[in-house]
């Protein structure tokens, strides 16, 4: 059975767009705050039938000295629409210090290709800096 997946991640720069951020002086030569590199891999369900619960997997991998924040409540806030509903915000399982897996459950209303989208709320840290990131995740699922 063939399936195709189109995945787009739109990741907001510099973390937090919602909270007011104090201005930061930008002196030439001043030390830079560490970047927060990470990787997100999304695997859609191998099979998904309409009007049933389907499960996709999001794997977070922290890179370059960053670790997955062990205390953060990772979640996927799905974009609910006429064609899709979500069962909660996912269950995050920590792997090693640098990775973790979020299982998300959704329920397509109809057969066909549907777009699954939402916001993955995550946090990665080094000893020096923590980042809260909220990348937008979108992928297609073929529903039978």
């Amino acid at each position, binding site marked *: 059975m063939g*399936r195709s997946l189109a995945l787009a*991640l739109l990741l907001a720069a510099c973390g937090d767009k919602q909270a*007011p951020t104090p*201005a*930061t002086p930008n002196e030439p030569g*001043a030390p830079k*705050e560490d*970047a927060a*590199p990470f990787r997100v891999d999304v695997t859609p369900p191998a099979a998904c039938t309409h009007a049933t619960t389907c499960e996709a997997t999001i794997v977070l991998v922290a890179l370059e000295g960053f670790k997955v924040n062990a205390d*953060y409540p990772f979640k996927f806030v799905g974009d609910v629409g006429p064609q899709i509903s979500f069962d909660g915000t996912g269950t995050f399982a920590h792997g090693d210090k640098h990775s973790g897996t979020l299982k998300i459950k959704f329920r397509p209303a109809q057969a066909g290709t549907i777009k699954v989208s939402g916001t993955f709320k995550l946090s990665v840290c080094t000893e020096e800096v923590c980042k809260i990131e909220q990348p937008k995740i979108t992928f297609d699922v073929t529903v039978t």
Partner: protein
Amino acid sequence: MQLRTLALVLALAACSKTKDQPVEPVTPTATAPSTTTEMPTVAKGTINAIVGSAAPDFTLKDLDGNPVSLASFKGKTVVLEWFNPGCPFVKKSHGVGSLVDTAKRQTANGVVWLAINSSAAGKQGNELAMNVDAAKTWSLAHPILRDESGTVGKAYGATNTPHMFVIDKNGIVVYGGAIDNSPDGEKQSAPDGKVVNYIDAALSALAAGKAVEVADTKAYGCGVKYGP
């Protein structure tokens, strides 16, 4: 079956830092004077060892360079908030979370609220201008005290920003830990959706002459950026 996964690596824009600020002197750790006010006995903290003990006294300078001593607030209830304006959890808490107006409400009730920044020189959140801007952005009317040496932070066992402590009128630390039970800092991850502001709860108990029910919790947020 055909599956494709897409991986993205992010290199996020960074915020720059200003020059180091001079280190403020800190008085040696001592015990704050106590009054004779009758208050319930406080159990010793297990997560925050300082809970149940006399609050270590300190003198730190505010953002204007004025010295502020804990001892000068003898007989008052004091809240200490470990602060770092560069920490995203602090930004969340002050922007949308439980720190939005808690200090303003509680100081109106006569509570003393002191933010303490223990970021060492050159570390995230240390810059004076960044703290001044944060105070303006979040309309903070209370002092932000600078603890660049980290002496005060370590005396209290502050590990995170934000990390909260409540000191009762007898000078005893009666609460230590998180600002609330929503570790995303934005009040969207509390169990069952019921956000508990631990500081409001502790101060309400003190005002009623009762023991603080939840006195010792695990702080969440960024690590305090102590120096070497």
